[in-house]
């Protein structure tokens, strides 16, 4: 079963799915992302229902500044691309290249998270737009904050993977792990694209 794949002639072209264990991880992770999608959809629905419930607080068109959010989007999209490069490198069995791209991905993710923290504290300090200000504010911070928490978790996870495997090379054991982590990173990215559209573009436009 696991470990019975012959690796003496080098890694197979899809090291992440070569063993049954890898296949299971791969499929299980897709199901997990399916569940995550539904969970985010619920938060999106809540946000859409409450985005005009501003009470005495500021509205979205008073708050959002698109240049900053656009910059954040670009950074996150780029980090998704660098993780794709890492996966290409993995399939070509180029370990150092893969690690380098993974590290770039983490750095970009950290910059994104830093900008998000800056954005939040800007709203709180300059607009008195806190978590408890209105139904809109609660829904906003919950949805965007949950995404931020996912970014944070992803950063911790990928960092751990990098540190753990820094000297091991690509193996049939760690290939599925890197692959799954990069899937997760894409997922975070896709969710952000929706947030950018539904929260920021629609909000800044006042829809």
């Amino acid at each position: 079963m696991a470990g019975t794949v012959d690796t003496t002639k080098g890694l197979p072209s899809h090291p992440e799915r070569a063993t049954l264990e890898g296949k299971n991880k791969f499929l299980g992770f897709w199901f997990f992302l399916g569940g995550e999608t539904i969970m985010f959809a619920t938060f999106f629905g809540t946000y859409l229902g409450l985005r005009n419930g501003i009470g005495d607080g500021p509205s979205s068109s008073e708050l959002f500044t698109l240049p900053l959010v656009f910059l954040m989007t670009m950074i996150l999209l780029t980090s998704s691309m660098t993780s794709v490069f890492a996966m290409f490198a993995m399939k070509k069995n180029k370990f150092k290249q893969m690690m380098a791209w993974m590290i770039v991905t983490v750095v970009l993710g950290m910059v994104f998270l830093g900008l998000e923290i800056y954005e939040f504290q800007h709203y709180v300090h300059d607009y008195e737009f806190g978590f408890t200000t209105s139904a809109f504010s609660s829904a906003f911070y919950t949805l965007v904050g949950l995404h931020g928490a996912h970014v944070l978790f992803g950063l911790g996870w990928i960092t751990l993977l990098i540190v753990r495997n820094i000297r091991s090379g690509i193996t049939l054991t760690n290939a599925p792990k890197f692959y799954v982590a990069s899937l997760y990173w894409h997922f975070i990215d896709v969710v952000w694209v929706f947030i950018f559209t539904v929260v920021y573009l629609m909000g800044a436009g006042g829809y």
Partner: protein
Amino acid sequence: MASYKKEKGVVWDWLTTVDHKKLGIMYLIAGTLFFLKAGLMAVFMRIQLIMPDNTFLSGQTFNEFITMHGTIMLFLAATPLLFAFMNFVIPLQIGARDVAFPFVNALGFWIFLSGGLLLSTSWFFGGGPDAGWTAYVPLSLNENQLGLDFYVLGLQVSGIGTLISAINFLVTIINMRAPGMTMMRLPLFVWTSFVTSTLILFAFTPLAAGLALLMLERIFDAQFFNPAAGGNVVIWQHIFWIFGHPEVYILVLPAFGIISEVIPAFSRKRLFGYTAMVFATMIIAFLGFMVWAHHMFTVGIGPVANSIFAIATMTIAVPTGIKIFNWLFTMWGGKITFNTAMLFASSFVPTFVLGGVTGVMLAMAPVDYLYHDTYFVVAHFHYIIVGGIVLALFAGLFYWYPKMFNHKLNEKLGVIFFILFTIGFHMTFFVQHFLGLMGMPRRVYTYLGGQGLDEFNMISTIGTFFMSAAVIVLVINIVYSAIKGERVIGVNDPWDARTLEWATPTPVPEYNFAQTPQVRSLDPLFYEKVHGDGTMKPAEPVDDIHMPNGSILPVVISIGLYFLGFGLIMLEMENPMLSPWIVVALGGLLTFGGMALRSLNDDHGYHIPKSVVKADLKKQGGGK
């Protein structure tokens, strides 16, 4: 690779086990204990309602019991009891040595348990939650009720366990089937468990989101449900029922699966209309997601929405009807053995139909204004839940007991149990239809005398005593059979049944199958009995068997989640003994530390050497 497993202490062995068979038994025990607890609450509630103006329970206690009874029954009794059978039976029925993620499987059990214990901890901090199992806002926003914090976080934690178990079942069924076990040869119990797992994946996630909203509102003063700050209370109801209605099918589909295994086995016939059964299961699951607002007819969502949801709801009767008829046709002309398992399975059919009929009645939106929140609803859903799910669980218990525990349950005591339970069940719940039509509201702790409600309430409560007696007989049966029951050690197939789990030796070795079986047909074991020599052909030579190592980390992680939840609840306590954040940090450390340890440490498991497998085979008198 690592050598043969070292001997460990019994307790340590069960704490660290990742064997799906042991986990199945653990789910069975935990689920039974929660079932007894929630059942006791039901008896207390019924005693309170035995006569008008009774003062056995206070209104507050009654509300807490009603909430805990419903919540525990659905999340901590019915679900884990079904998971018990799924865990034990699915890998055997698909011819697998193990599940896809043994570690995750164990983690799922322990997280479910720690969530359940967190919920139960509420009794030590001022009482249980009291807003009903649906936790409708604004009722559930009551700041003075710590119990509701336990509800929110306890369910959140145990829900994570359920979710990851569901993913494990999905991947197991897709990736771990024996050669020849195509999807359209899967036993119906596997099929229904598969569809149920998808439902869990897509229904428990909205629940998780909803509970997070409620938690943020209660503990961190969010404003989702506060109209003064732009919030909206109906959002909770939508999210809750988008989860809540599928939840019913999450429970009832595997119950259908059990019935579809037991009826053919004791009718000596193959299941009638296998393909139709599979597709009916899928259609029911799909429609299950489209009908949530039938719980909200009286909220004021408007006539158009009401009509759409009413029609969608009634549509479910069609695939359900297909199933009912297929069970009847399976029994039709069969050589039926009426043992306890079959008695429960066959009485399931008419009982469930009655629950279905009242369901269609409730689905008529205009008339629902009449029934809504009366005892008619209570009667309806108990006919589904007890008359459906619980009867199926009993059928499954008697059917699979010999495989799980190596002895049968006593049949005489079983029949007594069946008779007492059936009388008690109908006595308790049938009259509640009339109570509802006469206007007795649901969730009230008492009622006025002389309004025609007295007799039926009395009858209903006496029915509960019959059911309690029945459960006592079951407990006696379990103890008696453990001592004196008919042993089936060495008897692989005590019922002369049809599916693969009966091809394994009793007791089932930890690797299930010494050689993976080659599946040649639907009902593979039966096929070999007719067309072969009665045993499964192996699909591989005898060889070393790779098994996963046990691990204590699932226990550690779930203790961490317990503390995480408890720490958050402490934020709401008047004067907690120590800073809540210390507890939260400790919990986070255990949880995430445990996860990190797991991922840092590649665990390759161990091998059972060929010689041991060969010796086992020889002991069982086989070994081709």
